[in-house]
């Protein structure tokens, strides 16, 4: 245990001290810097014009850009100003240089066909109108310059007399289009909602990744594409762009100088102390522990129950047990978890943690059942026969003389199985159980620092695992008959 902790501390020191970032005060400092950007996007193109010697790193998601910046893998990244403002509203600790690297116009895209052209024309007309009457600016203020609390939106009551528009978006680009409480909202959503109201359309939004969306529009499979799409000559060859609905300044985002604390202590504070995030770790640990213990109890009981039925030796029953056992053995725990969550229990509305306990109980019982089956074979039939010859019934002989031996012989393997159960519970995050691993993920998503939460849960898992081992070791000593004293062996007998 001490050695393990030592290794972790060393790792902490090495990575924790971190790489000191380059001091960046102006665009000039970025001349030869490493700069993150959406690969091939307009922001990268603009930045390359200004900084031809810089080294560009393509990263697809804003969260990746931030994480790389935080870890000093890049010195800066370039993005539209609205995105960065939005990040700051969300509390992400970044800054950007005041100088713009160039303007990037943004608009909706339509397929290059008759319907697309018609829609595009209507959209252009509509944009001119809202520009003139100030509605567009109001929307910009609401979505691009305010925080979440002011961004109200409900879908208009649409007649749909002229049909329904199929709209496609990535829905990952706050504030343009993003998911909020399972509804796609954003600047572009409200704008097109108003467009539909004005031109008698209804609309439905389909979500697809960016590249697929572009393809869908090009092929005319959808009517409109939106995703804060930058107007690029390259893209104009294969699709129609409406008039710009917004012009974004390309800004260079850098680590915040004022408050960003990149020291180890600072990172620990951000990851664990701020907003009482350590409570999340504790909650996660208790959920992990609860699921594990419940699964151990139920899984063990289940395996014994099944094994006792199996021992009765009814051929048809055993055939079924064997079949189920073999089937379940071939299913990855992860798949079983998803299977139970999305199919078996989907209609019952059980809490996800109950599903997790059910699945891990089953998985553990599969292992323990197999152990029991093999273990019983390894104990010579002779002892059972000896018990029978004294007049014990088959079942009584098994429970009194054979089972304790099986349990003792298998205990170390059983201990391993229990530890595996604890480790495997790390996947329950997939069915929305907020266990230890999931909590680390959540913290990481908020702080954009993976290291501290992950190293924290590593230590917590270690502690839990050692705890489990200590308890099971204690049990192992208890069930070893040779640790009994003479008095205990013949309790109540005068020797």
């Amino acid at each position, binding site marked *: 245990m001490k050695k393990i902790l030592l290794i972790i501390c060393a790792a902490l020191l090495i990575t924790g001290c971190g790489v000191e970032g380059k001091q960046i005060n102006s665009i000039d400092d970025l001349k030869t810097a490493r700069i993150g950007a959406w690969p091939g996007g307009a922001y990268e193109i603009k930045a390359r014009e200004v900084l031809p010697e810089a080294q560009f790193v393509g990263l697809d998601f804003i969260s990746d850009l931030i994480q790389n910046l935080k870890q000093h893998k890049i010195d800066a990244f370039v993005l539209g100003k609205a995105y960065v403002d939005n990040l700051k509203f969300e509390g992400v600790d970044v800054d950007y240089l005041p100088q713009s690297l160039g303007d990037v116009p943004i608009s909706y895209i339509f397929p290059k066909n008759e319907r697309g052209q018609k829609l595009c024309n209507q959209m252009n007309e509509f944009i001119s109108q809202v520009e003139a009457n100030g509605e567009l600016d109001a929307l910009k203020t609401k979505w691009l310059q305010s925080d979440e609390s002011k961004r109200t939106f409900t879908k208009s009551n649409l007649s749909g007399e002229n049909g329904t528009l199929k709209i496609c978006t990535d829905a990952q680009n706050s504030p343009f289009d993003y998911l909020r409480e399972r509804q796609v909202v954003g600047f572009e959503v409200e704008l097109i909602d108003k467009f539909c109201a004005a031109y008698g359309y209804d609309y439905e939004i389909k979500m697809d990744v960016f590249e697929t969306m572009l393809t869908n529009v090009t092929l005319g499979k959808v009517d409109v594409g939106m995703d804060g799409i930058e107007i690029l000559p390259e893209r104009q060859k294969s699709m129609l762009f409406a008039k710009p609905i917004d012009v974004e300044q390309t800004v260079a985002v850098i680590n915040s100088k004022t408050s960003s604390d990149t020291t180890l202590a600072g990172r620990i504070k951000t990851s664990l102390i701020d907003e009482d995030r350590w409570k999340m770790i504790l909650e996660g640990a208790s959920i992990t522990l609860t699921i594990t213990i419940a699964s151990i109890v139920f899984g063990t009981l289940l395996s014994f129950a099944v094994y006792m039925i199996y021992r009765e030796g009814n051929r048809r029953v055993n055939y079924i047990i064997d079949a189920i056992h073999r089937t379940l053995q071939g299913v990855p725990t992860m798949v079983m978890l998803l299977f139970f969550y999305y199919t078996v229990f989907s209609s019952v509305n059980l809490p996800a943690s109950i599903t997790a306990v059910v699945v891990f109980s089953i998985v553990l019982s599969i292992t323990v059942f197999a152990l029991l089956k093999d273990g019983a074979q390894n*104990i*010579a039939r*002779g*002892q059972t*026969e*000896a*018990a*029978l*010859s*004294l*007049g*014990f*019934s088959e079942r*009584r002989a098994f429970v*009194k*003389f054979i089972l*304790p*031996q099986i349990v*003792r012989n298998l205990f170390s393997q059983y201990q391993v199985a229990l530890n595996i159960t604890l480790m495997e519970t790390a996947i329950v995050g997939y069915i929305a159980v907020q266990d230890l691993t999931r909590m680390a993920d959540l913290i990481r998503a908020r702080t954009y620092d993976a290291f501290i939460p992950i190293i924290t849960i590593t230590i917590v898992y270690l502690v839990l695992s050692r705890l489990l081992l200590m308890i099971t070791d204690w049990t192992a000593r208890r069930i070893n*008959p*040779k640790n009994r004293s*003479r008095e205990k*062996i*013949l*309790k*109540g*007998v*005068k*020797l």
Partner: protein
Amino acid sequence: MNVILRVENLRKEYGEVVPLKNINLEVRRGEVISIIGGSGTGKSTFLRMLNGLERPTAGKIFFMGQDITAAGCKLEEVRQKVGMIFQSFNLFDGLTAIENAIAAPVELKGLSKQKAYDKAKKLFERVGLLEKMFSYPDEMSGGQQQRAAIVRAMMMEPEILLFDEPTSALDPTMVGEVLAVIRMLAKRDLTMLIVTHEMNFAREVADRILFFADGEIYEQGTPAEIFDAPKRPKTIAFIRRQKFFHYDISTRNFDLLAMQGKIITFAEKYGLNARYSQRLQLCCEEIIFEMLNGCYAAGDKISMALEVIYVEAKKTLEMSLMCGGKSYNPFLEKTSDDDWSLKILKGYAKTFDYSHVGGVNRIHMEITPP
């Protein structure tokens, strides 16, 4: 005549194999019966049917008047009165000797723990295991384990005791202590059926000997009748073979050590002294190598059979060897000074015989006792 056990037309089949065809037997109360016979003659199967560990294919077993093969028979109650001692002891692991002994009387007969303990203590004392009462099976020697197993069976106060080769799994040095305990029980008017390969013991302890062959009781009688004057051919062959040692050799790299081990065991069985036993080993080894070199060229296929006979009447050993290959009589060879093997053979041979008939060399020699 107080018959405690009656077996009628008992038959056991395992698919095609029929180890027991038709067994009929009556056992009187207090009788000690030894069951002997070659391996695979169903002796153990027979014994195991008497307490229901094996179900007979046909036939009936009456124990104290009750048909234990009948459908409604409560085997568990019958078994309480039928003790069994196994070849491999089968003490319960993880329980001390005393726990092994008191488990059944306490659980099944409702004896108080204290009474069971007092009773067990007396029995352990009688079999010389008082000090081992709190030992676990893996802390005891085979002989001790078997004695503890006998105590365990005795604790149920059985009407009859079944011994299934009680000394076969034991080191020769421990056979004696177990046999002594069984002898002691035999003197106490207990009814016992003993399957054993210890002929001397069987002869000494039993009132009646059953010889099993061909799936039935081939011959039975008093020990004197069976051992000294067997009547039927298989009995005669079996009793004779008990005094034989046989070993086949088919390669030059045969396992010499294993063979010598078997010779030693054979010699011990007849109480030969160490020097005679060593002389026998030497002669066997030398004659084998002498004949290997004399009769076979390198690469020849080897077929050699060694036999040692103990002639009880004269208390001497005779050795014979048969082998193929070319004709070769080692005793006609001139002995050079450095040829120790021939010197040894000639020195120890009281008489010797050589023949070469039909391509087979036969050598027979009597070994001089020291």
